[in-house]
C-alpha cells in the first residue's frame, strides 16, 4: 500500500493520491469542466496541474475566439496564482488546428508541458489528434494537458478529470484560496471514479485537500489494485 493510502485509511490529512501517485506517469491528461459554467475552474485547475507537474517550459496554446468567451490570460493574476511568468509562453492561435499544432511543437522539447485549450465544437477532438499528442509526449519525455470544452469523445488520454469550482470555506464573506471539486473519470493506470475537494496552494505550487473537509472523501478503491499498474495507452 502506498504511504499516502495508508494515511488515507487512518483518516489523516494527506497529500491527495491524485497529485502524487498517478500523475507522474500521466503524459496526456484531459481536464474537463463539469458544466460549461465551470470552464474558469477547469482553466485554473489545469494551470495548477501544469505548475505542479512541470519543471520546464509551459506552453499555453488557445484558439483566439476563446478569449471572447472566457477572457485572455492575465499576467498579474497568473503571478498571484503562483506561476513563474518566465516559464509561461502564451500562444494565441487563429483556430483550433493551429492551437493543436502549437501544442505538438511544444511537446518536442523534453521536459516541457503543453497546455492546450480545446474549444467547443460539434464533433469534438478526434482520437487521432490526441494519439498524436500522446506519441509525441512519449517520444520526447514531455507532457500534455488538454482543457476539453468540447464534447468528450474517444481519446488516448491517460487521465481524465472533471472539475467543478468549489465554494470557499472559512470565515464568513471571505474568499479562500482557489478550490476545486475534482472527479477522476478515467484512469489508465488504475481505478477511477474517485473525487476530491482540493485547494490550490500558490506558495508551494501544489494541491492540498481543502481544510474544512471533515469526512474522508477519498475512499481506497475497493476492487482496484493498491499499486497502480503502469499500462501503455491503447
Amino acid at each position, binding site marked *: 500500500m502506498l504511504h499516502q493510502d495508508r494515511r488515507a485509511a487512518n483518516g489523516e490529512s494527506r497529500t491527495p493520491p491524485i497529485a502524487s501517485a498517478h500523475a507522474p506517469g500521466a503524459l496526456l491528461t484531459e481536464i474537463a469542466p463539469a458544466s460549461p*459554467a465551470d470552464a474558469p*475552474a477547469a*482553466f485554473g485547475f489545469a494551470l*495548477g496541474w501544469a505548475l505542479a507537474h512541470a519543471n520546464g517550459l509551459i506552453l499555453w496554446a488557445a484558439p483566439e475566439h476563446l478569449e471572447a468567451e*472566457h477572457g*485572455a490570460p492575465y499576467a498579474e493574476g497568473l503571478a*498571484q496564482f503562483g506561476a513563474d511568468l518566465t516559464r*509561461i*509562453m502564451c500562444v494565441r492561435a487563429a483556430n483550433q488546428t493551429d492551437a493543436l499544432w502549437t501544442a505538438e511543437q511544444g511537446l518536442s522539447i523534453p521536459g516541457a508541458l503543453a497546455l492546450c485549450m480545446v474549444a467547443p465544437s460539434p464533433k469534438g477532438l478526434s482520437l487521432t489528434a490526441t494519439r498524436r499528442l500522446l506519441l509525441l509526449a512519449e517520444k520526447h519525455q514531455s507532457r500534455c494537458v488538454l482543457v476539453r470544452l468540447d464534447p468528450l469523445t474517444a481519446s488516448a488520454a491517460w487521465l481524465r478529470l472533471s472539475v467543478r469550482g468549489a*465554494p470557499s470555506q472559512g470565515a464568513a464573506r471571505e474568499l479562500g484560496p482557489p478550490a476545486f471539486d475534482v472527479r477522476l473519470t478515467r484512469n489508465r493506470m488504475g481505478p477511477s471514479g474517485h473525487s476530491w475537494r482540493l485547494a490550490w496552494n500558490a506558495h508551494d505550487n501544489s494541491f492540498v485537500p481543502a481544510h474544512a473537509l471533515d469526512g474522508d472523501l477519498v475512499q481506497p478503491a475497493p476492487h482496484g489494485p493498491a499499486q497502480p499498474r503502469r499500462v501503455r495507452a491503447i
Partner: protein
Amino acid sequence: MALADARAIYPALDARPADPQADAALLDQIAAWCERYTPIVVIDAPHRLFLDISGCAHLLGGEAALLKDVKSRLKRQRLCLRAAIAPTPGAAWALTHAGERESVDENHLAEALAHLPVEALRLDTSAAALLKRLGLKRIGQLCDAPRAAFAARAGQNAMLRLDQAFGRAGEALTPRRPPPPLYQLRKLAEPIVTLDALMLVTQDLCESLCQILDEKGFGAQYLRITAFGVDMRLHQIELRLSHSERCPKMMVRLFREKLEREAERFNAEFGFEAVRLDALETSPWILRAVDLAPREAIYDVESEARLIDRIAARLGHARIGKIGVRDVHAPERASAALTNASLDAPAPQDGVMRRPLTLFARAHPIDAMASVPDGPPLRFRWRRVQHIIVRAEGPERIAPHWLRASDAKTRDYYRVEDAEGRRFWLYREGFYDGAEPPRWFLHGLFA
C-alpha cells in the same frame, strides 16, 4: 524672382506654400519605384536621383531603351523630369543641368562637357560666380586653365567636381537601401515553378550562406529570400529569428513552414529565374558548453528559442510571447507582451488572489443589485444567468489616469463568489450621488 513680380507677368499664377518634407517623401517614393531598374538608387536631395545602371541596362534592351522607359513611365505619372546617362555621376548631373544631350559615352565625354556652363559642375553659387567673373563660362575653358591657380582661388571643390565629372577622382554614393552584408545568389538555367524546386534552391542557398557565416563566426537573425520572376516581379519571404542561427537545416525548415503557409499568395506565374538569400541582420555566434550531466531537468534556452521561431514562422510573431506585468493601475493595461513589461512579478505574501486568471478585453456590462449604495452586489445577471453572491471582498478603488482618460469614471472592484463557488471580478463605475446611476461590469474570472 519675387512672387509679386511673377504675378505681374502672369496673373493666373497658382502659388502654393513650399513643403520640403512632402517633396522629400515623394522623392523617396520615386527612388523606391526606380529600384525596378537597379538595386542602387541614390537620393541627391532636394530633387535628384542617381541610378547606378552598370550591368542593368541590357535587361531593358540597352541604355537608350532604359532611358526612354524611365522617362515615359514617369511622364505618365505627371512628373516633369530631365534624365541623362553618362559614365560618371558628375557628368550625368551636368547633362541634366544643361538639358541638351541625354546620353554620352566615355569617348565623347570631354567633348560633350566642354561647352556646358560651369554651373553644371555642382559648384556652390559663390564659386560659380567667381569663375564667371574671371571669364571662365564654359567647362572647356576651365579644363585648359592652369589648375593650381584656380584651386587657390575657387577652392578645392571646383577642381574636385571637375575631376569627378571626368572620372579622374572617385565619388562614393550612398544607396537608398544599403546592400545586405551577406548574400547568396543563384541564377537558374531554367525558370523554376514548383515549390519543391524552390525549396531545393533555398536549401542550397542556406548551406552556402551558413558556410560563410561559419567562417566569420556569425549567425543570422533576419533573413530574406527574394525570388526573381521571369515577368520581372519579385517575391519575398522574410524570416526573423529570436536567436542567431547558422544551421542550414533549421533555416530550411522555417522557410518551408513559411512557404507552405503562403503557397497560395506565392504565385510563380511563369517561373523564377533567380533566387537570392540575404542575411539582413547578423550577430556573433556564441558557443555554449553543453552540460553533460545536468542535475535537474531544466529546459535549455536554445531549444526554447527554436520553438519560438518555429511557431512564429507559421503563426506570426504577434501570436506568441511571454506576458509580463506593467507597473500601471488600470487593470486592462497592466498585462502586456514582453517588450515593455516585467516578468518579475512576485506573488503577494498573504497568498490572496487579488487579480483574476483571465481578463476580458472589454468588461461585460451586467445587471447587478447592491444592498447598500457603496457595498458589493447581492446578485447579478451575466449572460442571462442569475448569480446569487454569497461571499464578496472589496472594494478596491481604481481611479482613471488623470491625463490619459480624464473623462473615465472611478471604478470600485469587488471579488465575489456565487453559491456554486464560481468567482468573478466585478466593478462599479461611478458613484450613486452623481446624476447618472452607476453601472456594473464584469471584468475577469477567477479559478
